[in-house]
């Protein structure tokens, strides 16, 4: 292991590439003996400068830009932005449009949770579960494609409404698809809670109590697995959620296994919601007019993305282009909570805690710089894991 010229310099190997779920990041721990005294993360590999980009595009063009922040929760970004702009221009959207928006948001949650289940299994070396979950995910992708015309970026939202309608035939197809997925989800719940090798990798890993979760500001299923009942669909219902109440799914033990279970239980909840929306779909037209120039105003719009609370702050100055759009994605909350959760833990625990905190971490770069008072070394993630194992032997 070559020593480094100065501690700040870090070498990024081209590690195995995953569908990097947000910015591939990179971790740096300062260690005193065995206890971690400080940790920091370095993002930026996927930073494209979108917030600056939004200031040079009109309100309508921004819809398509913001949708492409993340390929897995693209509808949720567009929904948050559209709700924010409608608040700015105080336009009220017809109920049918809100219901269709909620329907597509829930279908996207299924697609995101199944994808995460597959990637987490693949990361733990369980390829069969990866193949099965992604095969079943194709069902919901077909439904979304039937409804909106595209598999990933659906562009369902228009400022002031939706440009897609759900007719009876599509509703039946969605109901059949949801029934099939419910069968499969029962099977996955059985696999995740009984398969020995999988339990060996997930039980008791990265345990986080409710106070810790709250103290560290974790959001979404990661927080709810530790008993933190924070769900924007319940706290601040938006779009059509007031009409379709959601029961928050929380776990208690707060380890990685609990996060799997919470996400799978959320799938059941989503299936129930989709059936409810399809049965009680309000009638009416799909869009409302929205002025080209939005009056000067500020608005905050919060939406429950599959990974947690997505926070949009929009500011308009009366012109055709926004003055400022701030996007705070849920993953950054989970990352900042890991940084603070790591202080005080032993270095040997870190690999499991990091992959336990949010499995999409593990697709980050594999490099951990360990700055020891005696001089810093560059370790790969795997060497850190190896160090952890020898430490405990």
């Amino acid at each position, binding site marked *: 292991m070559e020593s480094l010229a100065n501690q700040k310099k870090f070498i990024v190997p081209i*590690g195995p590439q995953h569908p990097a779920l947000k910015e591939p990041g990179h971790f740096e721990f300062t260690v005193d003996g065995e206890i971690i005294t400080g940790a920091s993360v370095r993002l930026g590999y996927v930073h494209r400068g979108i917030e600056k980009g939004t200031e040079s595009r009109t309100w309508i063009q921004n819809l398509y830009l913001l949708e492409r922040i993340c390929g897995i929760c693209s509808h949720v970004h567009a929904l948050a932005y559209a709700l924010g702009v409608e608040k700015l221009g105080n336009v009220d959207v017809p109920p049918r449009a809100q219901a269709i928006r909620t329907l597509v948001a829930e279908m996207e949650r299924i697609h995101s949770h199944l994808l995460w289940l597959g990637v987490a299994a693949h990361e733990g070396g369980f390829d069969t579960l990866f193949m*099965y979950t992604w095969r079943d995910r194709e069902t919901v992708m077909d439904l979304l494609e039937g409804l909106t015309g595209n598999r990933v970026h659906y562009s369902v939202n228009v400022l002031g409404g939706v440009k897609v309608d759900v007719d009876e035939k599509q509703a039946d197809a969605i109901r059949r698809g949801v029934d099939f997925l419910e069968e499969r989800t029962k099977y996955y719940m059985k696999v995740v809670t009984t398969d020995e090798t999988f339990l060996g990798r997930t039980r008791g890993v990265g345990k986080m109590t409710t106070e810790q979760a709250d103290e560290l500001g974790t959001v979404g299923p990661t927080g709810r697995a530790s008993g933190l009942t924070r769900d924007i669909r319940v706290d601040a219902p938006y779009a059509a959620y007031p009409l379709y109440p959601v029961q928050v799914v929380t776990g208690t033990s707060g380890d990685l296994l609990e996060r799997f279970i919470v996400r799978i239980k959320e799938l059941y909840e989503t299936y129930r919601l989709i059936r409810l929306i399809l049965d009680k779909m309000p009638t009416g037209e799909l869009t409302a007019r929205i002025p080209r120039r939005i009056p000067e105003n500020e608005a905050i719009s919060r939406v429950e993305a599959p990974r947690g609370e997505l926070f949009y702050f929009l500011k308009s100055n009366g012109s055709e282009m926004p003055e400022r759009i701030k996007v705070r994605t849920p993953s950054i909350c989970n990352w900042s909570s890991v940084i603070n959760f790591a202080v005080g833990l032993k270095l040997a625990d870190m690999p499991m805690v990091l992959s336990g905190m949010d499995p999409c971490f593990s697709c980050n770069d594999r490099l951990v710089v360990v700055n020891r008072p005696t001089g810093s070394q560059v370790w*790969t993630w795997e060497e850190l894991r190896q160090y952890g194992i020898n430490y405990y032997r």
Partner: protein
Amino acid sequence: MTTITLPALIILLIFPGGLFLLASGLVYEWVDRKLVARFQNRVGPRWFQPLADMIKLLAKEEIIPTGVHPGLFVTLPVAALAAALTAALYVPMFGFTPAFSFRGDLVVTLYLLSMMTLGIGLAGANTVDRFSLVGATRTLTQLFSYEAPFLLTLLGPAIMASSWQISQINVYAHNVWWMIFTQPIGFVVALVGLMGKLEFPPFDAPEAETEIVSGALTEYSGRGLALFRIGKDVELVIGLTLVVAFYLGGLANPLEFLIKTLVLLLVMAGLQSLFARLRIDQTVGLWWRIGAVLALIQLLAIIIGRFIGRV
């Protein structure tokens, strides 16, 4: 038992030895990949896929990275493949009597097979790249963990046949009842040991694609990689023949060889797609705590059995 003796050179180069063995290695690799794919509900590769992979790798540019001992870097794959090929001479390939067999060739074969894994471990340790360093340490740790139980389980039938010669054990196994019934534990540990030796999942920590790129072979491309992959395929065939010869009632003719080995491969492919990858400390723990103890119990049972038998 058909006792066909072919001129030594043909045996070495063409029939049970060289070319034919490489071809069967490719075919077995295809069968394995196809079965695992079918278990995962995928279509799986075409029949000539391993052949195409090998030729393509041979035709690729060979990069020798800096900070590497070039001589060692090139000779290691050749040495590993040579070890695997010579091990095939003592094993009843395709139901024919082994070309050369002498008292005690069981130990020599096992040693040659672990020479192959040693080669991969050294190849990993030879380079500077961190991933292959970790891959090498993992390969060697795993080698030391499955070697003892695997050898012990192969001792069982040897004791029953009271000889260390594979061909004699094969003949003995052919006459007597299938050893799988008399020594069930031994068979299970031998099968799982074989999966550990070939680094099939759940024991594929040494080349865990998601964690350490491709473990010890990260730096290899072109010829070196092709030789290592062929060595692994040959090791697969030899391992299968060994376990079948010992536990599934010996091998008399090629047809019996094909049926038994492919059935065993089916069982192994099933096991492969059932489990998640075990962490390296879990694999080592599994081997030493469970594997070695079971093998010892089985050995004890056999010795007591024979003692009662003789008295």
